[in-house]
């Protein structure tokens, strides 16, 4: 079969050759049959071919630029803006509604949410199931935690399995952040802190959403499978705009409305877009 095809092409080429004296009309377009926008009629490639590529999100953490990994848990000491000497025993946080903006104004929305656990390397990368097309992009957005409409009690089985729920009496849904560890208090004693964030309870049965929507303007080109880094600077939770002194507030913060809203306020400078590799 293959040989016959080749023979046929060969004959066709010879016959075609002799018959085709006048110059062919130039049709520009994408001439790569593997491209999404392949134009079979085109005979001149104009560089417009687009392809489907996969995006992986890499979640990284640092303390004012020094990268933090699982090896730092319980061992590395950090000093926050208020001067508290602290260690981190546990860091888990939830990111949802990741979206990429194209230069034509369209947006690609991804369905996945991701619970990052610093102690679990697998949880720190998320390969998005929807492929994107190659081309120019202008922005990346995501939500820290769940939006009000996504933050539904019991809705996400893997998060239930991870015991990630936020108590119904505090508005339900899920935790957004669990940052636990120890610090040296003003008397030099080692004390625990539980910096947990989620829906804020105003009063009995009255709750206030507490997620943060991030929308970064970043110009980048996707030409191949790409990894986009979403970075958390942990020190920002204690720094900006409010200097958070763990001597004042370290535990029992979940039902503390002011603490919950202050965390949300400080959280706005916590995340940034890092490297985009492909």
């Amino acid at each position: 079969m293959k040989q016959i095809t080749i023979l046929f092409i060969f004959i066709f080429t010879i016959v075609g050759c002799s018959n085709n004296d006048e110059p062919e009309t130039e049709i520009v377009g994408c001439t790569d049959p593997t491209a999404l926008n392949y134009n079979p009629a085109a005979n001149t490639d104009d560089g417009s071919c687009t392809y489907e590529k996969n995006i992986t999100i890499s979640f990284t953490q640092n303390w004012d630029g020094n990268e933090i990994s699982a090896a730092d848990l319980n061992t590395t000491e950090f000093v926050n803006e208020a001067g508290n000497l602290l260690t981190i025993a546990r860091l888990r946080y939830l990111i949802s509604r990741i979206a990429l903006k194209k230069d034509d104004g369209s947006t690609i929305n991804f369905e996945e949410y991701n619970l990052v656990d610093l102690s679990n390397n697998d949880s720190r990368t998320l390969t998005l199931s929807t492929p994107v097309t190659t081309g120019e992009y202008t922005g990346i957005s995501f939500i820290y935690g769940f939006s009000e409409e996504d933050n539904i009690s019991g809705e996400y089985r893997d998060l239930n399995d991870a015991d990630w729920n936020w108590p119904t009496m505090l508005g339900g849904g899920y935790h957004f952040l669990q940052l636990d560890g120890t610090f040296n208090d003003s008397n030099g004693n080692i004390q625990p802190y539980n910096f947990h964030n989620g829906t804020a309870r105003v009063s009995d049965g009255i709750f206030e959403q507490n997620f943060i929507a991030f929308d970064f303007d970043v110009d980048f080109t996707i030409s191949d499978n790409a990894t986009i880094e979403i970075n958390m600077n942990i020190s920002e939770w204690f720094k900006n705009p409010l200097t958070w002194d763990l001597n004042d507030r370290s535990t029992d913060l979940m039902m503390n409305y002011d603490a919950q809203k202050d965390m949300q306020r400080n959280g706005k400078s916590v995340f940034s877009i890092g490297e985009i590799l492909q």
Partner: protein
Amino acid sequence: MMSWRKYTIKFALTFCVLGGLFACSSNDSEILEPEEVYTPTPKPLDVPPILERLLPPPSVPVDNPQTVEGIALGKKLFFDPILSGDGTQSCASCHKPDNGFTDNNRFSTGIDGIEGTRNSMPIFNLAWNRDNKFFWDGRATSLEIQALEPVTNPVEMHNSWENAISSLQNHPQYPTLYQEAFGTKTITKELTAKAIAQFERTLISANSPFDKYLLGEGTLTEQELRGFQIFMDESRGDCFHCHGNDNSPLWTDNKFHNNGLDAIITDKGLGNVTGDPNHDGLFKSPSLRNLAYTAPYMHDGRFETLDEVINHYSEGLVYSRTIDPLMKAVSRGGVQLSPSEKADLKAFLLSLSDPSFIANPDFQNIN
């Protein structure tokens, strides 16, 4: 796809029969065993409604699917003292159905009369242990690997696998049961562990009064409901960070914590397994289901009653270097519950016990 396979089997069978007719005179025994064709009957786990609604599906290893014959073999093995060195102890000697598949001793005693150093763990809902870390210290990375250990442990069944397999191989029934479960009469420790793991995965408990309340099929007392509020209140019980909640119905996080039992760590727990000193004194959170049947409590069975457990978290916490930060009230000795709060919390905890689990006829000894 299915019909193709059917035809293939039919054809193979026809061929076997024809072959049999021709070969009859010379070689009877070999052709009567169509080993290749046999497959055991699949028996997927029966998932109770509350687990179905709130959790991912149970995780069963691809190389050890649940089958009717495998479960039956595993059950027989679980209750059979044949696995122990002197034929006196079975898995069920320390994992009794009446006790939620643990026993009521602080430490269990092996065949040589020697006590272990940790409390026998209850067995249920293990197909939802997604991290696959078994034992109090997480040293076994699958249920199949876990099942291998007690047989040879000198303070438990104190046998060798060589000897155990020889006993099974010479038994009048076991070779046929292995044939039915796994398609071979050649018994190995791996197949033995697989069968036991299959039976253990069927031990599912999710029919407590609290489950029925969540499903809208039952009610709780005022006291039980107050106890649940204490459990879920970060400034009072704060139990939910490690022990599940109404939407996380395993009632454990299946993770490892130092819960402030001792100032000086003598049993390193997870630290012995990982070699990381930051893991010294960490043990797996047990489920709070079936506490009515599983006393004594903690990895070393030090607390005989639930009251003692609650008192520990209320005023008995002790600082050590690796204590979990979630034991945040350690400087005050604990969360300081009032006597009535303790009683309420205890009532709630007992509402997580499931009488239908310990009475389930499928889980009783039939040997």
